[in-house]
């Protein structure tokens, strides 16, 4: 993270942005998204963190609170490609990944990429699709590549899936298994906007919807550099130990605790959080800020929301050292 690296940033895409610039970039994106999405600054930050730390996001919410708009606005601000898949019970895996189509002219099979080939993929109501289709998406998420008819194709970089779940109408849904839920870095609740935000939002949608006029504020290349910045953020031994102890606590206090994958996700998210705070190292505060959204859905305990309680207990009682 020296000045020398910054100056020859143009030479290759392998360099990272200085932390301050990465933080500014993130702030710029967040402010841009906020022109469309009102009163969801926290959610916007979480999405940015997921993107910066190469993670994926699960939005767990009722319809109509702006999940899609949030994803679209983010993608647009990033100057990224954006695709949306509406999951339905009859959706096939190939509808997601793409399919080899026989081209009559060239007499060859030609790969027709599915909606997963985009920088930001919105998978709406993922729990309505059958497990096979779900797993196609989830595999893409994990591997950042897709294999169709034995041929492996890399997905674009950056690649972030924002999946939504609708918990209200549970009829004809396929609940995501824990193993697959684990692959989402974060699970968020947007919730309803507060009164002031909603009024403000209504004012903005009258006439032209602001999303139409939203301009990209970040180049994809900058985003990749910022991702490298995040990956380079230092995590000291006390912080690593803290993350481990948090995970350990959930394992001791729930039926199913946080997996090592969860610990890694927490660490990555914390790194991104540190960058947003213009820091080159993670402090326990970053871990605490990320723990709830990163860990809660990985903890299985009793009823709904119990996982979150366990994580909050962990934050309260695991000593920070």
């Amino acid at each position: 993270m020296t000045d020398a690296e910054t100056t020859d940033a143009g030479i290759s895409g392998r360099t990272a942005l200085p932390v301050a610039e990465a933080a500014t970039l993130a702030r710029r994106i967040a402010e841009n998204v906020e022109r469309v999405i009102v009163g969801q600054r926290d959610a916007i930050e979480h999405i940015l963190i997921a993107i910066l730390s190469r993670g994926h996001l699960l939005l767990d919410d009722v319809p109509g609170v702006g999940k899609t708009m949030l994803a679209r606005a983010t993608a647009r601000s990033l100057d990224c490609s954006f695709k949306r898949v509406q999951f339905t019970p009859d959706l096939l895996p190939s509808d997601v990944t793409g399919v080899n189509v026989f081209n009559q002219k060239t007499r060859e099979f030609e790969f027709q990429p599915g909606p997963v080939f985009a920088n930001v993929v919105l998978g709406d109501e993922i729990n309505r699709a059958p497990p096979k289709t779900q797993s196609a998406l989830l595999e893409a998420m994990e591997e950042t590549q897709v294999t169709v008819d034995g041929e492996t194709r890399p997905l674009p970089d950056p690649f972030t899936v924002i999946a939504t779940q609708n918990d209200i109408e549970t009829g004809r849904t396929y609940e995501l298994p824990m193993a697959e839920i684990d692959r989402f870095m974060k699970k968020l609740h947007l919730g309803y906007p507060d009164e002031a935000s909603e009024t403000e939002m209504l004012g903005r949608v009258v006439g032209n919807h602001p999303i139409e006029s939203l301009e990209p504020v970040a180049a994809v290349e900058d985003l990749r550099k910022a991702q490298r910045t995040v990956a380079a953020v230092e995590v000291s031994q006390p912080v690593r130990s803290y993350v481990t102890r948090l995970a350990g606590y959930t394992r001791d206090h729930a039926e199913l605790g946080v997996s090592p994958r969860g610990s890694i996700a927490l660490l990555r998210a914390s790194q991104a959080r540190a960058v947003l705070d213009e820091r080159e190292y993670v402090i326990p505060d970053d871990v605490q800020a990320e723990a709830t959204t990163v860990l809660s859905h990985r903890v299985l305990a009793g009823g709904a929301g119990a996982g979150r309680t366990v994580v909050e207990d962990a934050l309260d009682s695991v000593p920070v050292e």
Partner: protein
Amino acid sequence: MSGASGGRGGGLGDGEATDAGGATGARWKGVRHPGMVGIALLTFSYVSVLYHVTDVVGGSATMAVVVAGSAVAAAALGRFMRIRTALFVGGALVIGGMGVYVLSVPASSRALFTVGRVVADTVALLTGLSVLRLTNAGVWALAIAPAPVFLSVCLALRGRYGWAVAVGGGALLFFILTGDADSATTLVGVIGAAAAVGFETMNVRGGVAAELDTLAVVVAAMIVLSAVLSVVPGGAAEPLLPDRGVGTVESNVVSSSEEVTVVGSIRLSPKVRFTVESDDPEYWQTGAYNRYTGSQWVRTDTARPYQGRLDGPPGESRPLVQTVTARTEMDALPAAWKPVAVDGRTADTAKVTRQGGLVAGDAVLANESYTVRSEVAQYTEEQLRRSGTDYPGTLGEDYTQLPDSTPDRVRDRAAEVAGDEENAYDKAVAIEEYLESNKGYTLNVEEPDGDVADEFLFEMDAGYCTYFATTMVVMLRAEGVPARFVTGYTPGERVGENEWVVRGLNAHAWVEVYFPDVGWVRFDPTPSDPRVSTESARLDQARQDGEPGVDTNETRRDDDSETPTPTPTETETPDPDETPTPDDGDDGTPNGSDGNASDGIDPNGTGGSDVRTPAFTPAPNDGGGGDPPADDGPSLPSRETLGVWLALLVGLVAGARRVDAAERAYRFFWLRHQRRRETPERDVERAYARLERLLEKRYRPRKPGETPRAYLRALSNVGLDPRAERVGRAYERARYGRGVTREEAETAIDDVDALVRSRGRDGARTGR
């Protein structure tokens, strides 16, 4: 801990009794509390003081009735009465009691009651004036007893243990201040008070066992407290610990002027106290005591200022002028009985006791002189025999007071010895001779537990002047002869025609018997030979040891080097040569004519009826006699003392453990001093740890899951110094980040140093 379990048992017992009486559930609950036992102990402590007073002056049966009545009334009314009403009743009892007391005081004394006088008396009481010195102490005790008993029982029944303890504690404190409550009584009372409050508190918290170390601490604190409290009023005469050190006869009988406590082993001080120029040798009296408590002599009533010439003895007398020159500072005015006038600076502050003696207002400074004119009664034995029993005023009763608890065998023995004699004089002589011939003289005695006279008569073989005099007075009083206990000095060493050197070892106690139309006549039951030989041996030893202040220019005729033997003093005994004193004539002119009453001062071999060794001839070959008093070196402390010390030690250890004394001390220094370590990171981490410790003391500790940053931010909302946040950032860099520079580390340490230093000022400002 037996107290705790016994306390619970007692509390339950109370409860059962009450329940049997058909009390309500609320009442049951109130009495069942073990705190009630504490209140009972506390009440017992000050009631025992009052009971002791009535025991001494009479009325102990009435006292028992009054106290029991108050307690029963409180128990009966406590249920219904509101607190305010109870307080009102308590106040009424106090006022009513005081009214009764005022009415009981003779009209002549009552005329003296002015606001100023009452205030002065109260202050006197609260600064160590024993209640026993009140003229009507018995009535006073009876009048004052109901109020605190009633109030504290009432309040305790209503569950107001704090108030009940305040009332009882106030009463006890009063007696502690007057010096009437001894260490044991104080300890019982303080333990009771602590138990009342403690048990109630523990009841709330639950579990006596869990608080054992607290109890140990409390008990130790109580021992210290009671020891310290009981030391306040009496000064040197009161013990800090049960095992009081070995005092001197002088400090025992002369220095504590208002009362004399009979103690155990005692020493002789060889220091020269004063010199007297007088035509005749006399016993130089410093105090007379009328009230006997069984272990103490008390002078009742306060002294009034000396305002010119006093009355002489009722009968014939001859004037005697003495010029006393103090050699060390003195707080007494030794003078031959009976003093009638005093001159010099001393006269301005001198006071006259109710008993007719002189006491010094201000101390007499070293080398200061005063002149006393005394009227020495002149009488013959025949006169005394015929004087009858027509005592003026209440003198007959006042000077025959004995504690109710005086054992019958003392009275029996007195009747055996003197019952057959028909007049007071013969009785006195008989008793004096009995004591002289049946008891030995020693300074090493075990302090008696019960009544001194009883112990001395039946349990002890030997004692010193205080024992002889006390016992003689008690026996005389048992026989209905008015007598009193008198302290002072024997004439001392004659060094000139009419000059006498008096040392500390001349301090003495003797007896005076009242004869109508004659006045107070001296009797000395202490065997003089052994006493004198002990005194002279002590003096020899002091000279040998080269103790300072033992001799004056007149007495020291030989150099120490020339007097290596233990018996060097033949040359300095002028007494044999100076036997011209007129008091040995047969005509009985001076008071010493009867021999019995003046054994101590009769010069060599010319005594009256008895042939005795002269008082002031140092027994030449009795060198060993004085040794015992000298070896007052360290001996093994008594079991009680060891027990007290052990309890203290246990308490200290438990207390130290309780408050983590070692860790606290460590932390104290740890917080203030930081040594530079090898790396700046370590320094910053330690600086932050100190900061956190500081904030923990001032605000609150950091919660387990709270990050340093969140902690400091939370505290900054309540006005944290910005430097603290700076230290916090440095700590984050040092611990989680890529390290800090040496300069940053120094800044952090300086910041914390400054914060630690500013803490004291903050604390003072906020009264924290």
